[in-house]
């Protein structure tokens, strides 16, 4: 257990704690933190619990807790809405996205950080600049182009779009900058090709940053909605998010939709539970939300 008298960070210091009103103030801040956590978690807990309710219970009884915790309701909805198929589709979309996120952004960052060909500084400036460009503003021509080259109804545009992510390029570049140039030079002297250096030396040395990018890419590909919706709508390859949007106006009942929401948020929550250290690290390192 942490002892308050050992507090040596922040504005309030050890010697302040001796004063009674400071001590009370500290516990007040602690209480406020508890309230923040409560506000952050209660909607999620409520939606998870509501998934157990029957339709009648949800609409008419208006209580917080469900009467029973029978998992059968979830199974019924899963089968009714054929979620297995959409989970599988999302899985395909995630796998390809992760592959391109790592290879394309990693290679570009390696190039800018270690090879530095003529003009790479300008390229990096353009990439930084595109962080400020909202992806939604260019969605219309992007959609038209995808249609024109006949990639609608396939996962390919979703996979490739993850290969052009400024945030991941910056994450990689920052990390590669810390790998000694002499290591790369030595490999070059030994006759290793640039691609060889990237795959045999740089990637294996970058396990920690790879973990961050892979987790971000999984979460981004799973959560993405607008592009998958435009590309995959009515193709039979809809991802979980696309289906969720379609259920909104379909014949599904309220509780079925709530369970669909639960199905769509469970994988990210599990992923976060397993890797929260890495996910939160990426943010603190770059100051950009992934």
């Amino acid at each position, binding site marked *: 257990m942490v002892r308050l008298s050992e507090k040596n960070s922040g504005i309030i210091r050890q010697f302040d704690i001796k004063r009674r009103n400071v001590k009370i103030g500290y516990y007040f801040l602690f209480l406020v933190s508890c309230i923040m956590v409560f506000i952050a978690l209660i909607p999620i807990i409520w939606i998870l619990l509501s998934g157990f309710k029957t339709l009648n219970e949800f609409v008419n009884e208006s209580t917080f807790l469900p009467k029973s915790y029978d998992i059968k309701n979830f199974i019924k909805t899963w089968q009714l809405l054929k979620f297995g198929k959409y989970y599988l589709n999302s899985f395909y979309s995630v796998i390809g996205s992760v592959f391109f996120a790592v290879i394309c952004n990693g290679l*570009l960052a390696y*190039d800018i950080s270690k090879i530095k060909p003529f003009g790479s500084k300008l390229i990096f400036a353009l990439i930084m600049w595109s962080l400020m*460009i909202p992806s939604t503003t*260019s969605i*219309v021509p992007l959609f038209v182009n995808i249609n*024109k080259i006949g990639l609608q109804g396939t996962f390919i545009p979703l996979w490739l779009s993850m290969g052009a992510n400024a945030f991941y390029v910056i994450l990689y570049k920052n990390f590669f900058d810390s790998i000694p140039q002499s290591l790369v030079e030595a490999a070059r002297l030994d006759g290793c090709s640039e691609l060889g250096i990237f795959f045999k030396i740089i990637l294996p040395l970058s396990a920690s940053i790879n973990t961050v990018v892979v987790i971000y890419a999984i979460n981004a590909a799973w959560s993405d909605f607008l592009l998958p919706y435009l590309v995959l709508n009515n193709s039979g390859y809809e991802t979980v998010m696309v289906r969720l949007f379609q259920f909104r106006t379909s014949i599904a009942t309220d509780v079925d939709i709530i369970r669909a929401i639960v199905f769509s948020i469970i994988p990210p929550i599990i992923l976060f539970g397993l890797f929260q250290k890495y996910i939160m690290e990426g943010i603190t390192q770059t100051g950009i939300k992934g």
Partner: protein
Amino acid sequence: MYKSYVYKSEIMMPTSNKLKRNISGWLIMIPSLFLFGFFVWGPLLESIYLSFYSSNGMRIEKFVGLSNYMSVLEYPDFKAALINTFTYTLWSLVIGFLVPIIMAIILNEVIHLKGFFRVATYLPNVIPGLAIAMMWTFIFRPSNSGLLNIILKIFGIGPQMWLSNPKWTIPLIVFTMTWRGAGATALIYLAGLQGIDSELYEAAAIDGANIWKRLINITIPNIYNLARTLLVLQILSVFQVLYEPLVMTNGGPNNASLSLMQLVYRYAFEKFDYPKAASVSVVIGVLLIIITALYNLIIKEKDM
């Protein structure tokens, strides 16, 4: 020391080697650059191009000058969307900007359970935006089954209309966005706060500065630059709000929450009028550039 070594080795590198490196460097970059071109830079320029043409479905037909812009600006919903979008931005400054800063300062002070507090407040950020919008639609339900009305019932207050009340629609949507993003933004501020030299606080305390004075004179100035950057990014992102009004209210009630970005969505994917959709996107882009420029101007004057 290490840097000077790199510098030398580059100078001494024979020209043929340098050329080889430039060529292999560019070859490796090309696939990734192609993707950036296709998904990011290209569509942006095409938006501008497309907005000056008429089209039949996806086929571009002829140059029409500014007529797309004219009809977009005259469209009655445009004015509503424009005002709403500024209202969103304003509310997000009221609700969304200070919350993460205050959260970060508090989380930085609390040492008990601090890991748990950080993880728990960050959690909403990993939940997909669409799922969050749908989740909060259930929470804001006007009937007895919505979570907020269930909570109000405990205090003996009758069910409220929430999202169907035009006065409250935008603030509630902004609240939802803040609920999602505040924990993650707080984490960025927290990283900034932890970069402040501990000795500064000690020295100030010895000089007799109380906790409040330390907050005003040390903590706030140290995260000022960060806050400035994050403010711009926040304005940029809130200005383009789409998912929440699309899912939670579909722009209603009576256009009370219709955003500019949603107008783009309606033009493009409900009316299939791509040039007009592109014109609205360009208008959004131009407005954002103006806002950012004005903002920088004001900040610079203040600094001098």
